[in-house]
């Protein structure tokens, strides 16, 4: 059972997540950029850099989008249990996570639109197309996990996995979830919205602190998406010997490592191809998985 937390957890959550996302960024940095120190230097350089501005940009919407991306990731993290304790174990935690992650759609589109630049706008539109591609099987995967625990509360989903992990008897949902975690953070094979073929897509015109917030927010979102897979499919804090928080850390690190490995191994996937695969292959599979779980739940 997830316990309620005190106020310090609310204060501690953002810095903890930022450190986690920075670690992910440093581990994943391209060879030759200097690893942890190089990433830190780059962030500091961007923070003191004067921001460029473009002609006739919509500054309000641009700033709104840039700030919204890390905000959405942080708000989504509020329902993620660390061990068995989350900042807020909402009765509709799964829906909350889904809603906050949807705010990233608005954030990326706004960031792409704001600078009044063609390549940047193309990036924003690409993310919407990608969102429409991944969202349907993604929602079905979330629904299946909630169905297995007969609750939308993330804490209850963790409790339901004291015995068997959901990843083991809902493998399709788990794989679909991992794929959409990459897609929602426009990462690895799904990085077309900020793809180098569009000179950096939605992020092309960003500089200074805007760039730190946007690209950092993207890594936050990846980290949070990976962290959510642990309570939903990998048994949360359940595990032998180690305490709950340690299992959460180990499992989250393993999922992040898997996602980073996928990034190195798979080529970039165009969103229209992913739409076809997602709608015609993954959606029926995810529905079949949900049906199977529903039958098991009804039969219990």
């Amino acid at each position, binding site marked *: 059972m997830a316990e309620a937390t005190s106020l310090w957890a609310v204060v501690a959550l953002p810095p903890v997540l930022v450190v986690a996302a920075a670690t992910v960024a440093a581990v994943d940095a391209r060879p030759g950029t200097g690893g942890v120190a190089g990433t830190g230097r780059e962030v500091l350089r961007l923070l003191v850099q004067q921001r460029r501005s473009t002609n006739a940009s919509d500054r309000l919407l641009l700033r709104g989008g840039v700030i919204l991306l890390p905000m959405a990731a942080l708000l989504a993290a509020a329902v993620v249990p660390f061990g068995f304790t989350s900042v807020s174990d909402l009765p509709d935690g799964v829906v909350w996570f889904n809603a906050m992650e949807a705010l990233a759609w608005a954030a990326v589109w706004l960031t792409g639109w704001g600078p009044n630049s063609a390549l940047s706008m193309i990036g924003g539109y690409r993310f919407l197309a990608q969102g429409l591609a991944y969202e349907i099987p993604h929602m079905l995967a979330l629904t299946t996990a909630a169905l297995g625990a007969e609750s939308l509360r993330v804490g209850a989903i963790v409790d339901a996995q004291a015995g068997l992990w959901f990843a083991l008897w809902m493998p399709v949902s788990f794989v679909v979830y991992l794929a959409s975690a990459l897609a929602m953070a426009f990462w690895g094979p799904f990085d077309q919205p900020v793809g180098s073929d569009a000179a950096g897509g939605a992020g092309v015109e960003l500089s200074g602190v805007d760039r730190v917030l946007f690209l950092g927010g993207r890594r936050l979102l990846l980290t949070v998406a990976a962290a959510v897979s642990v309570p939903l499919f990998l048994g949360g804090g359940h595990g032998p010997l180690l305490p709950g928080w340690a299992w959460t850390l180990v499992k989250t690190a393993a999922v992040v490592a898997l996602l980073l490995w996928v990034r190195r191994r798979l080529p970039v996937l165009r969103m229209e*191809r992913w739409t076809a695969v997602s709608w015609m292959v993954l959606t029926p599979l995810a529905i079949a998985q949900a049906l199977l779980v529903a039958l098991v739940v009804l039969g219990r």
Partner: protein
Amino acid sequence: MLSAVVLHALAALAVASGVLVFVVDSMARATFSLLTSLLCVAGVVIGLGLDYLGVVTVLMMTIEMAVMAVFMIMYMMNPAGLMPMTMVHNTRGSAVLCGLLFVLLVTGVLLIPWPEPRGRPPRDATRELGMSLMGPQMLTMMTLGMALFATIVSGVVLAVRGGRYDRRGDGLDAGREPGPSRGDVGG
């Protein structure tokens, strides 16, 4: 007390950003003012104890407005959608209509005999609301929902030219031709 203040602030913000939709001069700003307004409404719904409905409102309205941004900017009066443009037409007529409607609604609010609260609020307000709205008609509404969805899908299938069934025949067994858009699975 605090929750009442928050609820009223959210309500005021919802109305203010709703007004902004017609004041701003760009499609993008209008779309996202509307989203702000709807998010405030979702906050009010959560504040009323219907947290599931509130969070679902956030989810649906965010996705809807993001998609709407695409369509509004693609298809609206200004082909580019990028230039400053006015969000209103027939200003005087619509102002009169809106004023009349507002007066009608306010009169309704003030004159209707509101029921007195009885008993305690239910534990799961969302469920109670669903039961009182739908009651025994739940199955009918679910079926209706599926029928509507099937209609939308078939409408799109019939309207699309150069789709799979045009190119490869009703049995999908004619020769394989590349489609007008990339990304088809199984041609």
